[in-house]
């Protein structure tokens, strides 16, 4: 081959590579696909496979609530926790791993945590909470060089692209499910879970919810039986998944590290039932007062119309609920109430909910 020919050949090869490269880059859809893949890869380094070895490996039985529209005869009576590994997220280079409480509940003998490179570590359970569905594991003998996703305070907002990253049977590969943020602030005010439509099943429960840039948004919570089609191991996701938010977990982390078992605080309770059918939009109509509550003590009666709460005008139940969501037991609530022709100002001290409420 002469020199000229070689140069031409090299240039031709170069042009061919250029052309191929140019074709691969494409429209916005290709950009989305690429970003999803790359952010997933990046975040997956900190997503671990967890195996829980139990002293008595009894399946966990959960009675399925039968939804009103369901044929009860077709429902399997019980739910078993499936065998096999589950997912968790390393949130610190020292080897703190967060996962769903559901994954580690039971009579634990020992736990192993495996990263995507196949390196297996022993781990022990620190703090946990069944109410929040969260548990903290500590990798034993960690030397401060583990890949991790830091907890932050990101809130990408309703409709943002999200991904769920899990790591299960094949430890060398992660799983990725894509979706949108469906709702913000679900469940109890203390939990304020995020809802998303990326598919969640037993394997990726406890895995990472990340945004499109690969930041950790939260830890995927156990799919509640009533949002799952067949919670008996066939576990079919319904596209309604939840996550504990990074922000919330950051606030809980020190308690979890100290090995505390966290429970939800008692719910601040007013003791009124609001009339959902009242449509005049000039206040919140009280339909009923629950006996033995702060509302009864303060002398609120059925038929009262709440016009203001803490100085803010309320025209529908949603607005009043939003104000109540910020309250704790012991807090005070100022109400302006219209009773007949009179306007009454009241202040009530919120108490825990009576038993059974």
């Amino acid at each position, binding site marked *: 081959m002469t020199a000229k020919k070689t140069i031409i050949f*090299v240039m031709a090869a170069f042009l061919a590579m250029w052309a191929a490269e140019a074709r691969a880059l494409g429209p916005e859809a290709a950009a989305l696909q690429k970003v999803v893949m790359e952010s997933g890869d990046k975040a997956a380094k900190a997503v671990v496979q967890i195996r829980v070895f139990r002293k008595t490996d009894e399946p966990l039985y959960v009675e399925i609530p039968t939804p009103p529209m369901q044929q009860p005869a077709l429902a399997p009576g019980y739910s078993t926790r499936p065998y096999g590994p589950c997912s968790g997220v390393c949130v610190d280079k020292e080897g703190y791993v967060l996962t769903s409480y559901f994954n580690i509940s039971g009579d634990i003998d020992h736990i192993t945590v495996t990263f995507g490179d196949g390196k297996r570590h022993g781990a022990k359970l620190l703090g946990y909470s069944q109410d929040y569905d969260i548990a903290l594991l500590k990798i034993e003998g960690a030397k401060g060089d583990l890949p991790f996703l830091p907890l932050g305070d990101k809130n990408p907002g309703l409709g943002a692209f999200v991904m769920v990253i899990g790591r299960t049977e094949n430890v060398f590969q992660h799983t990725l499910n894509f979706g949108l943020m*469906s709702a913000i602030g679900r469940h109890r005010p203390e939990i304020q879970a995020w809802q998303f439509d990326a598919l969640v099943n037993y394997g990726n429960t406890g895995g990472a919810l990340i945004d499109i840039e690969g930041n950790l948004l939260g830890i995927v919570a156990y799919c509640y039986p009533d949002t799952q089609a067949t919670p008996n191991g066939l576990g079919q996701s319904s596209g*309604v998944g939840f996550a504990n938010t990074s922000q919330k977990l950051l606030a809980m982390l020190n308690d979890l590290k100290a090995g505390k078992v966290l429970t939800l605080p008692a719910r601040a309770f007013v003791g009124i039932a609001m009339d*959902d059918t009242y449509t005049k939009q000039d206040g919140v109509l009280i339909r009923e007062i629950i006996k033995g509550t702060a509302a009864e003590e303060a002398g609120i009666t059925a038929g009262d119309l709440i016009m203001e709460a803490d100085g803010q005008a309320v025209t529908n139940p*949603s607005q009043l609920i939003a104000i109540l969501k910020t309250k704790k037991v012991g807090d005070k609530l100022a109400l302006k109430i219209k009773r007949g022709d009179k306007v009454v100002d009241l202040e009530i001290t919120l108490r825990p909910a009576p038993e059974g409420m």
Partner: protein
Amino acid sequence: MMTRTRHVCLAAMVFLAVAFAALNFSRAAGADEADLRKVLGAQKEMQDLIARTMPAFLKVGGGCGVIISEDGYFITNYHVAVEAFRQTETIAVIGSDGAHYAAKKIGWDPLGDLTLCKIELKEGEKAPCLELGDSDAATIGQMVLVYGNPFSLSNDSKPSIAFGIISAKRRYMATTNLGNSFLYVDALQTDAPLNPGNSGGPMISLDGKVLGINGLIFMRYGFKASTGLGFAVSANQIKKFIPLLKTNEVVYHGAISGWYFDYPVGQIGAHVQRVDDGGGAAAWGFKAGDLITKINDEPVPTVGHLLRVITSNPEQTEFKITALRDGKEVVLTGKTERIPWAPGQMSGLELPPQQQQKQDADRAVLGVVFDDQFAGPGAKVKAVTPDSGAAKAGIATGDIITKVDGGPMANFAAVIGHIKSKKAGDTVKITVTRDGAEKTFDVVLMKYSEIQKPAPPPLLPDPYTP
């Protein structure tokens, strides 16, 4: 000379390699940045779209609805509204900002699983609304958002938002749900998760228009949760019914009765196998052997397409149907009939409660449930109501009713039509075929209120049962 050439050649190769690497590196790095910017831009657009469209969303009873005009008309599913309005004529519906509106029902479309309602607005108040889009122009693979309140989990007034694509359009199926029969004859199929509580909620295109309202899911093992097969009543079908719903309490879908199709090899179109004497198709002038090729000058590729075009329109719609007969084109015109919709007889069909109360009290019934899948001729008995006239006379499940009072019965609709003309206490002669033998029974018709509704047949654990 040779060495110099080799040097030049080598230098050129090294230069090109370095240049390629450098260029490639810079392009790769730049591309990532640009890609992320594009994706974040798309995310922003998606969030803006949600913020813009969410105010038109309503919580209605156990489901949802969407406002479609500034003066407060909104649409929801029939199966949502029929439950919501069961007790009262005025209900409260909740806007996405938490406002409670008083709402009234305007018109029912029970077979199309649609109800038009209206919220009461203050003087001069304009409702946030969304336009109905063109569902025929929607493409398979197009991205959509679905709004709803799955599993009634919302603890504020905001909907849940889910994302998916249009998996198929123009789906044709007749189905039953919650004891109602529905015709999703021009449905959009989506993989966006739909669950109980999503019913009546809008399916929204990325340009912010309503492509349909979500109302039906296919499920497995009877568990009501998303399988990735969700169906929406299409906006184009809805648009055809809205003017009628504003002026009629109930609207009906159109059909042509008394024709049967088969599928000969090598023919494109709908091939008429036979036509019943005295049926609707005979009145149009159809004959056995006709190959229907066009409806309103649009090609008819399949039987399903023909029936969808007819049935996604209201009754009394005029059509021009072109058929090939003995190699020649014939053009037939006419109006469609009302789809027989007899409450309580076909798979537990229900009328809206107010009407049901009026009609149910002393309506004459035979006391059987017909198999609506039976191709005929005749009407096959799927179940017999205990203690009904039919049960007392000895009619049994599996019997095929061929004659009533001596007149031949082509299908179950004909039987229902005949019974309708009778009063409770009348006696009718029912001729059935049982195990190949013909038997005749004298059945005393009873009042609907006197007999119990038969229990629905047990669902089999079949993974493909809708």
